[in-house]
């Protein structure tokens, strides 16, 4: 069992999946002084973390309740699920909501078609395709607004 007593009563975020998004987010939260536990099946995935990352790392299968117990999900305030498999993300989100009553659950889904089913489950979902499409649309609109302006910025 990981010991987190040193964190006292401050808020805890558990992140599942240490890919590009998971590691970037973990680094950011850690830099901002937040308590983070990052879970990934593959220990080698943690090499993406910056040397300054001050959170905890846990190697294990997060679809397994034992792993979530070990990550002390029962006392987590936020759970962010960003593995590269939609179905895995969905199952972990439902496990967390049913068995751990995690207050806030955020889940990435690549396939926007599945989103409608899970939104009503009390799970916040975000879809990179939809976000990118919106962002591109905005960039296009900005470009149209400035006649032959120099294009800058991005998301």
């Amino acid at each position: 069992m990981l010991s987190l007593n040193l964190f006292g009563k401050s808020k805890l975020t558990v992140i599942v999946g240490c890919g590009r998004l998971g590691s970037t987010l973990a680094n950011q939260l850690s830099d901002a002084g937040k308590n983070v536990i990052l879970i990934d099946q593959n220990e080698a995935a943690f090499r993406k973390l910056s040397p300054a990352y001050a959170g905890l790392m846990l190697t294990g299968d997060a679809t397994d309740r034992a792993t979530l117990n070990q990550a002390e999900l029962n006392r987590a305030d936020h759970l962010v699920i960003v593995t590269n498999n939609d179905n895995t993300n969905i199952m972990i989100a439902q496990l967390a909501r049913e068995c751990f009553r995690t207050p806030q659950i955020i889940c990435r889904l690549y396939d926007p078609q599945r989103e409608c089913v899970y939104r009503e489950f009390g799970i916040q979902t975000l879809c990179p395709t939809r976000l990118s499409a919106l962002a591109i649309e905005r960039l296009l609109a900005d470009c149209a607004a400035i006649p032959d302006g120099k294009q800058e910025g991005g998301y």
Partner: protein
Amino acid sequence: MKKRILIIGGYHKAQRLARSFLDKGYDVTAINKDPAHCQVLAQMRGLTVMTGDGSKPFVLEDAAAEQADIAIALTPRDDDNLVICQLCKKLFHIRKTVSLTASPEKVKFFYKMGIDSVVCALSTITSIVEQQAFLDEFTTLLPLSGGQLRISELRLPASSPVIGKTLGELQLSREVIIATILRADQPLVPHGDTRLAAQDVLILIAAARQEAAAVKVLTGR
């Protein structure tokens, strides 16, 4: 109208199930991710086969999931099976969903998530092997309410101490019922004055925790 059954994933299991359902006159569609598996499945006469990921709504839609009466998820991954069954239920309003799960710990969770029937191959197989190893004249036919109650079959060996006794004389727990007796393959309705004979097959309905004691009374072992 013919009942329509959708089988998603699985290869050998899908083949056996499809064969059996088709023989019983059901309308069966199989969805499989692997094109090679689909080719083999497609050789079965009468079976409709679709290649694709059954956890994607458009694949289910192509397979006319909204017209199916039963969906059975047989993929090797628990998360895929869960999502397939939930999509079938929520998007396509299929009345009955059946899912396989690899881990016994997830059975309860799957039921809680709205799947109508959850089968754990691992616990089913281990419990059968356990039964077989324990006594060969005794087999569980059907575990009920999560295995707490079981319907089982017991053949009385010639050495049994209860042969010649009436059912009323047996010292069985109140949680064990002899539902029927098969004598030379003919069913008998048991009464208190029915006398037991060697080679009688007893169909028992028993609380799992009383089963071993009942077997001991009936076989003397």
